[in-house]
């Protein structure tokens, strides 16, 4: 791929017909909730766009986010669109290694200052000076700050980069934090998920390339078009929830009949993501369709939100120690208050003056 090729030329050289490309743009426009006329605008703009420089930083992560994008159902138009951007630095995918790789990142930053996109997967460890994750001798913190400084925008992909994810889970031994905890002066789009949906990542990039802006975000920095609804809102098993029909175990009649998985721990009601509509593996299915409850992987702290297999309403921390202590203190307090009240009662009784019949007569009576 020559650097001066447009996205349209790149796709054409990959054997993607204009018809297929238009279909992709129509789908993307619809997913992004843009007016129908924008499909053509997107197609024209994307086709003419020079390859956008993208620097992909992988920090404390498992590479699942990259896998989601590149290996989910290859080759897809989504992954080809990613070929059509200029992925100037991605230490898992790039051929260069060592100093050459780092030079590529610095070169891209210099050549496209203020214009390049930074995509981050993985959390950033802050504890002990950030020694728990370093690349080419730089801590993740230093590399993120340095790279973000000249970026047009940052897309945090995956739950680790967006909310800290697994490294951030209790007890968080490396002091892991999200991108948005560090970078405050750049626009950040959060695309959470463990892993995130490839189409959503591509959608955000397509939106940026087409309109030059980032999509509208919710209070947690997620694109509203993909994270506006909960899994539960869009779940095809929702009617069973409304009827009170629940699978009790993974192999009972309810499970075989495809009933609601709430009682098996489904976090769909509180999980915002597009799994139920966009689906996975080329639109084949999503976890609930395969009979497994939603884990809530696109929500903050989902690792610490109690068991995956306990209902959403269940407690998340043990109560017995607190209850025992409370009862002990309560009993002691009860004894103290009770004894004080009893002493008062006795004191009041002592102050009563005894009056006999003689006393009454002595008084002369009326």
């Amino acid at each position, binding site marked *: 791929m020559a650097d001066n090729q447009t996205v349209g030329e790149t796709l054409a050289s990959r054997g993607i017909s204009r018809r297929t490309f238009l279909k992709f743009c129509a789908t993307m426009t619809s997913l992004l909730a843009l007016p129908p006329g924008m499909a053509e605008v997107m197609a024209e703009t994307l086709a003419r766009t020079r390859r956008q420089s993208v620097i992909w930083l992988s920090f404390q992560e498992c590479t699942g986010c990259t896998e989601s994008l590149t290996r989910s159902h290859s080759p897809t138009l989504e992954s080809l669109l990613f070929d059509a951007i200029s992925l100037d630095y991605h230490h898992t995918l790039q051929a260069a290694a060592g100093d050459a790789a780092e030079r590529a990142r610095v070169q891209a930053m210099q050549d496209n200052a203020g214009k390049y996109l930074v995509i981050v997967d993985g959390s950033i460890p802050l504890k002990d000076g950030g020694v728990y994750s370093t690349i080419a001798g730089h801590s993740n913190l230093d590399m993120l700050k340095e790279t973000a400084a000249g970026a047009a925008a940052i897309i945090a992909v995956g739950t680790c980069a967006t909310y800290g994810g697994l490294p951030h889970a209790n007890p968080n031994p490396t002091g892991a934090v999200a991108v948005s905890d560090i970078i405050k002066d750049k626009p950040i789009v959060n695309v959470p998920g463990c892993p995130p949906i490839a189409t959503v990542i591509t959608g955000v990039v397509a939106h940026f390339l087409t309109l030059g802006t980032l999509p509208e975000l919710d209070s947690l920095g997620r694109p509203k078009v993909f994270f506006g609804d909960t899994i539960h809102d869009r779940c095809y098993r929702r009617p069973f929830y409304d009827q009170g029909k629940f699978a009790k175990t993974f192999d009972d009649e309810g499970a075989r009949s495809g009933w609601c998985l*709430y*009682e098996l721990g489904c976090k769909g009601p509180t999980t915002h993501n597009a799994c139920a509509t966009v689906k996975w593996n080329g639109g084949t299915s999503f976890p609930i369709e395969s009979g497994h409850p939603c884990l809530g992987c696109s929500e903050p702290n989902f690792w610490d939100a109690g068991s995956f297999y306990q209902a959403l309403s269940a407690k998340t921390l043990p109560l017995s120690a607190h209850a025992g202590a*409370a009862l002990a203190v309560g009993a002691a307090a009860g004894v103290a*208050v009770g004894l004080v009240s009893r002493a008062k009662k006795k004191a009041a009784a002592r102050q009563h003056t005894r009056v006999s019949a003689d006393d009454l007569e002595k008084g002369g009576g009326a």
Partner: protein
Amino acid sequence: MSGPELLLWARGTGLQIAVAIFLFGLLARFVELWLLGRKTDLSVARASAVGPGLRTVVSRSLPMPGALKQTPLVFLGGYVFHLGFLATLLFYVPHIHFLRSILGFGWPGLPPFLIDVIGLVTIATLIALLVQRFTDPVRRFLSRADDYVAWTVTFLPLLSGYVAFHRLGTDYTLMLALHILSVELLLIVIPFTKLMHMFTFALARWYNGAIAGRKGVRV
């Protein structure tokens, strides 16, 4: 604090705090009641106290003859509210799962549409009872601040539960968190207000029946 963080806190630390205060208050009050005690009754018992005591616990929970005509709203509203509150609390499936996670056992629930209807009727009844408390001069005169506190902390879980159930408002996660927090507020308030009657009503009725039974009064 965002919706998910608030929900996590409510289901974890918040619940630990609320349950601890609830149990502390409950036991402290029971121990105090027990220590205050009663003078030993030295007279010879004319009859057993146990039967009349138990009978009174039941009989005073049943409708009083003539009450429907005298105070129809209090009579009907009282029953509808108490039974409705218990039904939504104990027979809504997510609630059963909450209780199961604490008690270790569960029971079958009611279909959600029934819970929906019962919840709505219960909310309407509570509002009607509050309106009556405001409009009836005698009730208004007799009402103190803690009556309104008790009403409010009882009403909030119902209202927030109804809003969360129907996914009204913008954010279900936040509504669910607020619902759980409102229940935790109720738990904290119970031992220190008139709401303690949910435990002491049986003791008081037992005592009245037993004392009468011991004296040979037929109850």
